[in-house]
Structure formats: C-alpha cells, structure tokens
C-alpha cells in the first residue's frame, strides 16, 4: 500500500516535471516567435517610414500633375474664348465683303469680274487662312492635351500599386507567425488557427526558394487540405448568393470571416457576371470580366492571398475605375 502511494507520488512528480518541461518549451517557442515578430516589425516599420518619406513628395508631384491637367484645360478654354472673338471679327469682314461685292455689282461689274478681282481673291484667301489656322490649332491642342492626359494616366497607373504596397507592409505587421504554436483554445479552433497562420506565413513571402521554404510549403499544403474543404463549403454559400454585391452577400462573407483566396473570388465574380448576362440575354461587355493578371497586379495580390469580401470589393472598384479610364 505504502509502495503504491510512493509510485503514484513518483508518477505525479514525473508528470509535473514533464508539464514544466512542456511549458518551458512552449515559452521558449513563444519567445522565438516574439523575437521574430519584433525583428519583422522593425523591418516593416523601416519600409513604412521610407514609404511615408517618399510618398509625400510623390503625392505632391501627383497634385502638381493634376493641376497641370487643369491648367491645360484652362489654356484651351482661354484660347477658345479668344478665337470666338476673332471669329466674330472675321464674320464682320465677311459681311463687309458681301456689301462691297453688291456695290461692285451695282456698278455693272459681272460675277466673273468680281470673282476674279485680285483684291477679292486675296481677301477670301485671308479669311480662309484665319479660319483654317484656328481649326488646325484646335486639333493640335486637342492632340497635345490627350498626350499629356495619357502621360498622367500612365504615371497614375504606375503609382497606384505603391499605395497598396504601403498598406500591404502595414498588414505584414499584423500577421501572426504562429509556426508550431497552438493557441490554448478548443481543439478545433487551435487546428484552424494553426492552419490559417501557417498558410498566411507561406503567403507572406513566396519568393523564398530554399529547401526549408519548400519543406514548409509542403507542410502547409497538407494543412491547407482542411482549409480547402471549408473553402468549398463557403464556395457553395457564395454560389448560392445571387449577387455578391448585396448586403447579404457581404454579411455572409463577414460571417465566414472572408478567408477566401483571391483566385476564388475572381473566378466566382466572373462566373456571376456570365450567369447574369446569360439570364438577361445580353453579351458580356468588353473589359467587364476581371482579367486575372491585371487584377492581381493592380491589387498587388497573389492568387493564393486570402482576403475578405469588403477588401475584394474595394479592389474590384479600383480595377474597374482604372479599366474605365483606359477605355474612355
């Protein structure tokens, strides 16, 4: 009996030791992750600071460009007003010329004589030249304006990803590294958290092509199987929505925590548009369907990046604004 008690006590001590060891291991891993987070945030902060530093003059230059666009419009409008006054003057001369021709007719000059008169011919040529010059200058300026507009459009397009990138690096700081850490919650939740954090970790920087990176990616792929299954359930729900634009759609997306891949959203959005057009018996408009590569480039996302519906909606609006500008 005494030896049984001793055994139990020994087992209890062993278990306590094991618990301590696991706890210290857990704390150690937590510290490693904290250190990683600290370093990562430092790097991200440095970039954000650089971005703020560079984006400010960049924004000022953009404003200058925008002002220039307005100035061109103003210069053209000013020229139009001045030209209107010249047109009136030319009209006055034209009327005087008609009166003069009448007088010549009254003096017995024939139409042919009037028409062939060197003075009349010269006057007509002068009037024609003035009008021609105004017209050609107007066309030339319209061309120059569209060239300037195109330059502005191009540079705006060039800059827009950077505005997103700044936000992207702010998001980097919000990501949890979580490798190997299981949150002390219910079993299911911890597994999901682990999967999600690992998945986000793998998405964080896909450019790492090291063996370790590939190893991690393989592990992530295995973990993602569960996520894909839940994604497919969400897919069904998303499909069931007649319009992702509706508030209900947004609500559902929020309820699902919006953890869907960009690729999934793109294909679902295009399917939705196709269905809509099919039902209404109309053809898909040019540029209406999302072009995967352009969308990903503009939104600075990769196919596997996960985002919520609200973010996707914002990206989609930006995409169509830019496309619209291109087609206008």
């Amino acid at each position: 009996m005494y030896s049984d008690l001793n055994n139990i006590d020994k087992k209890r001590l062993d278990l306590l030791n094991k618990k301590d060891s696991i706890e210290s291991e857990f704390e150690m891993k937590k510290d490693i992750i904290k250190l990683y987070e600290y370093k990562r945030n430092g790097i991200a902060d440095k970039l954000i600071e650089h971005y703020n530093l560079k984006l400010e003059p960049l924004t000022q230059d953009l404003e200058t460009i925008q002002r220039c666009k307005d100035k061109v419009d103003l210069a053209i409008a000013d020229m139009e007003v001045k030209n209107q006054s010249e047109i009136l003057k030319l009209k006055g001369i034209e009327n005087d010329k008609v009166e003069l021709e009448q007088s010549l007719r009254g003096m017995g000059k024939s139409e042919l004589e009037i028409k062939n008169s060197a003075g009349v011919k010269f006057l007509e040529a002068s009037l024609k030249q003035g009008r021609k010059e105004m017209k050609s200058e107007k066309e030339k300026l319209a061309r120059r304006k569209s060239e300037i507009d195109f330059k502005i459009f191009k540079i705006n397009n060039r800059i827009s990803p950077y505005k997103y990138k700044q936000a992207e690096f702010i998001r980097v700081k919000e990501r949890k590294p979580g490798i190997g850490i299981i949150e002390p919650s219910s079993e299911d939740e911890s597994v999901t958290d682990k999967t999600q954090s690992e998945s986000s970790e793998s998405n964080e920087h896909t450019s790492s092509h090291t063996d370790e990176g590939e190893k991690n990616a393989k592990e992530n792929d295995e973990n993602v199987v569960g996520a894909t299954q839940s994604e497919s359930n969400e897919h069904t729900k998303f499909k069931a929505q007649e319009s992702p634009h509706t508030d209900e759609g947004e609500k559902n997306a929020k309820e699902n925590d919006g953890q869907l891949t960009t690729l999934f959203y793109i294909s679902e959005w295009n399917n939705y548009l196709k269905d809509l057009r099919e039902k209404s018996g109309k053809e898909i408009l040019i540029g209406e369907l999302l072009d995967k590569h352009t969308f990903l480039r503009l939104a600075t996302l990769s196919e596997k990046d996960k985002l919520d519906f609200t973010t996707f909606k914002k990206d989609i609006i930006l995409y169509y604004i830019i496309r619209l500008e291109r087609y206008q």
Partner: protein
Amino acid sequence: MTTDNNQVNNQDQDVDALNTELNVLINKAQKINQEIADINNETNQVVDAIEMEVDQSIKNIERSVSELDQIEKETEDELNKLMLQHAKDLADYSDEDEIKSED
C-alpha cells in the same frame, strides 16, 4: 460728251473708293490672322510650359518609384532572410527537443 466724261470720272472714283475699302478689309483680315497666330503662339507657349512641368513631375515620380522599388527589394530580402532564420531556429529547437526526448 462732258456728261459722259463726268460719268466715267464718277465711276472711276467709285471704283477707287471700293478698292480702298477692299484694301482696308484686307488689312483688317491680315491683322486678325496675326492676332490668331499670336493667340496660338501664346497658347502653345503656355502648354509647352505645362508639359515641361508635367515631364519634370513625372521624372520626380519615376525617381521616387525606383527608389521605392529598391527599398522594397531590400526589405523583401531582409524579410526573407529573417523568415528563413526563424524557420531554422524553430527547426533546430525541435531537433534538440527530439534528441532530449529520445534520451
């Protein structure tokens, strides 16, 4: 005969007057053409200046953007290195644990 001469003289005077009027109109038309040329010139100069300003701003933006690209590349490299180091640290730590538990 005198009446005929007078009539011819009067007609000549009228023609001269009309020619003078025509010359005035021609001068006016040429003046307007000059004004139009001046307006065009002035507008072109304004647009030239604006275009130069746009080009300068675009140059500035391009420069800033390439600097941002450079910074971003460096940051990405740094982050990749850090991630790799982090993965290695965790892997090393797990290996140590395995050895300990085997012992």
